[in-house]
């Protein structure tokens, strides 16, 4: 542990202090150290989007992010989206539209969609497709993903922006 680095990070609203290997990615740290396995590893090299989380409100690929760089940051994972048992509107839209099959890409899709809407990039189906294109779904639930993002955007006011 001698070459480990102390990192303070606020994860889903809780301050966490952990010693991490400076080479450890945020994906590994969330999954293996903090037990937050909702964040998925589909490729570990920035190709699939399954590991998408929010860092200070912006979507990042956690597999391409070293955990040390999250020092002092606020990280939101899929586990931190819903409050008090209520599903986040994006989660609810995915559930109601059956926007997944195996569901392995879903946490990444959901996190990406939350950011996509907040960015104001969900004003049309074409725009949603463009700005959600970093998240692969091999089951190809794409039509339902577009519908879910549009629905959640309408609900969250993102579509009007």
């Amino acid at each position, binding site marked *: 542990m001698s070459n480990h680095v102390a990192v303070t990070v606020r994860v889903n609203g809780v301050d966490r202090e952990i010693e991490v290997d400076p080479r450890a990615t945020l994906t590994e740290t969330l999954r293996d150290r903090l037990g937050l396995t909702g964040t998925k590893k589909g490729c570990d090299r920035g190709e699939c989007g399954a590991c998408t989380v929010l860092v200070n409100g912006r979507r990042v690929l956690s597999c391409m992010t070293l955990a040390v760089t999250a020092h002092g940051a606020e990280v939101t994972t899929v586990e931190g989206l819903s409050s008090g048992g209520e*599903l986040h509107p994006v989660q609810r839209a995915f559930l109601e539209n059956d926007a997944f*099959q*195996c569901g392995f890409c879903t946490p990444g899709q959901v996190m990406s969609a939350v950011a996509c809407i907040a960015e104001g990039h969900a004003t049309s189906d074409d725009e949603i497709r463009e700005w959600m294109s970093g998240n692969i779904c091999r089951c190809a639930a794409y*039509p339902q993903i577009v519908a879910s993002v549009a629905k959640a955007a309408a609900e969250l006011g993102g579509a009007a922006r």
Partner: protein
Amino acid sequence: MSTATRETVAGRVGDSAVRPDAALKVRGEFAYSSDLFADDMLWGATLRSPHPHARIRSIDVTAALTLPGVYAALTHADVPGENRYGLDHRDQPVLAEDVVRYQGEPVAVVAADHPETARRALDRIAVDYQVLDPVVDAELAMAEGAPVLHPECPGGNVLRHVRIRRGDPEATAEVVVTGEYRVGMQDQAFLGPESGLAVPAEDGGVDLHVATQWLHVDQSQVAHALGLPPEKVRLTLAGVGGAFGAREDLSMQVHACLLALRTRRPVKMVYGREESFFGHVHRHPALLRYEHGADRHGRLVSVRAEIVLDGGAYASSTPAVVANAATLGIGPYQVPNVRMDCWGVYTNNPPCGAMRGFGAVQACFAYESQMDKLAERLGMDPVELRIRNAMREGSTMPTGQVVDSAAPVAELLRRVRDKPLPPPADPTDPRDLPGGVANTTRGDGVVRGVGYGVGIKNVAFSEGFDDYSTARVRLEVLGGEPVVSVHTAAVEVGQGLVTVQQQIARTELGIARVTVLPADTGVGSAGSSSASRQSYVTGGAVKAACERVRDTLCALAATRLGREVGLVDGKLVTADGAVAASIADVLGDEVIERTVEWRHRPTFPLDPLTGQGNAHTQYAFAAHRAVVDVDVELGLVKVVELACAQDVGRAINPQAVLGQIHGGSAQGLGLAVMEEIQVVDGTVRNPSFTDYLIPTIVDMPPMVVDVLELADPHAPYGLRGVGEPPTISSTPAIVAAIRAATGRALTRVPVRPDDIALAGSASRPVPSRPEVPCD
């Protein structure tokens, strides 16, 4: 007497019921096989051969074992049972012995306290290889004098040859078209990599939590290799991140169990993406030669075909793939004279096995390309030609089997043809153009094309296989409410099988609260989640078990109430329709539990000389129309729209049916224009999502879908398998559309930009220039 009113519960057969695992999945709480942890757990890793063909002179693991944190390093010498596994043939070593037959073949496994330590330990294992020339061409592998890769195989490198002879195989025809087609190696590329957790048990056995497609076939292969009785190898299904055929064969199952039993600690194995490309079988690459003969009115007289499927280094499910390609190889058409030969061949390429639509996908690309070619030769509309020859209920397959339920091939084609065409692209919006926002084109050189495809697939296992599923259904009263639990070993891979089981139990028993228990080997086999078979076979088993529970309940009620009653909408009802009692009243604290093994109608082997026989239990059909825009100069393709029509017999869950049609069509699109594992001299060149492209949300076109429900009287609720047909016909439809836009022959999938843009590959003139705005 109860006065409760009768209510129909929601979420029955025919409803778009929400998946019972949906909330977990959107919350990130659904535990996939890669998410499992155990206290004290070790991490396993696999050393793989860098060579496609080599003799192993020696393996030395000593240096790996001296690395701190390493607990085991095992080779073939540590496999306690028979070092062999396989679905049809046990021809594959758990860990290579004297020879490796493909690049990526497992040679040794290690367990360490950290994944990084395990990886470093692999680097310390010394393997002395004598590199051999790989056999990489399937046709050459069949030739006299080729190096024999499996000396025990009686056919040399030919693992299976299926011959079909129908009518006069030498029949002549007025119009003849020939063609040679190739299909590249496609990968299932499920998003959740191979993974699992093996936990050693007190009794000397092992508990394995794993993502698979068929728990019991894994169990028997693992037990065989471990030298344990099957009851000491218990499997529980962990969350499956997609399958598409790639989880039918073993990957890390035996390895993790070996390591767990050796170290007496739980061992987790998770493949990375690159390793995943080597960790499972792929879709068979194919070479297909066809000759279609027709009369001048376009009526098919004969089809003669030769298909060579490259099975790669091990058998996997190649024999079944060969049978499918052969028996379905002329497509959903009536043809009096057929001569078909299909071979599955061993090479030193990556092993190939199951992928969605297997065998049928390869053949469909070829026979549909031929139908277009024939239509062109005859000057006929390609849809009209297909309709003229379309099979229907009562038609005879080339195997002599009579299709004895709906086969609405012509209707499916008419439906996709008659959909309105999408508007032209907006040349000012790059998102509308091939190449998208990369802004590679401004619309000059962009030509639109429309193409059609229709396909046929067998549902469930064929050729006399004892194909069954087991369901245990339990009814009890909890908190005053009747509750049903359904227990099967059937694997949910994302297709929605847990939802279907729940819907069936609700329908049969009229009870809202239905729990589908985790799938495990604690109940009898359910067979594989493949061949579009689970709604049919496990659905049939759940239905039958519910009926037994219902009969038992009604008999019990009759004794208690002193009169005959039936179960209607969850209430015990007399012949005049009055509610006699609630289930809770009758059952009290008794439990009714029934287990049923259920089979579809038997199938029969194919005659080895003529290929005649009732080999399949059900056929399924889908048709596509594809509209594409092609930049003919840059070779870029944008699929603008896909229309699909499919007969599903009965849509048990319409929403899930739609998802299957979208998903299957997208995978067919991938095969048409982007997906191929590039294998050069037996070596995979693109094992990553950077270099192996799969369709993104931008590549996925809007879809117009028509679902027909023409009941199959032999199947539960009349349903017909759904998952595979849409994968089959989307590929040829898209390629036909690209041909229409470009005039290129395009005899190989995936179609690459070079095939379109580079001169020299055209067999027909490019369409007249007026369609190209500027030049």
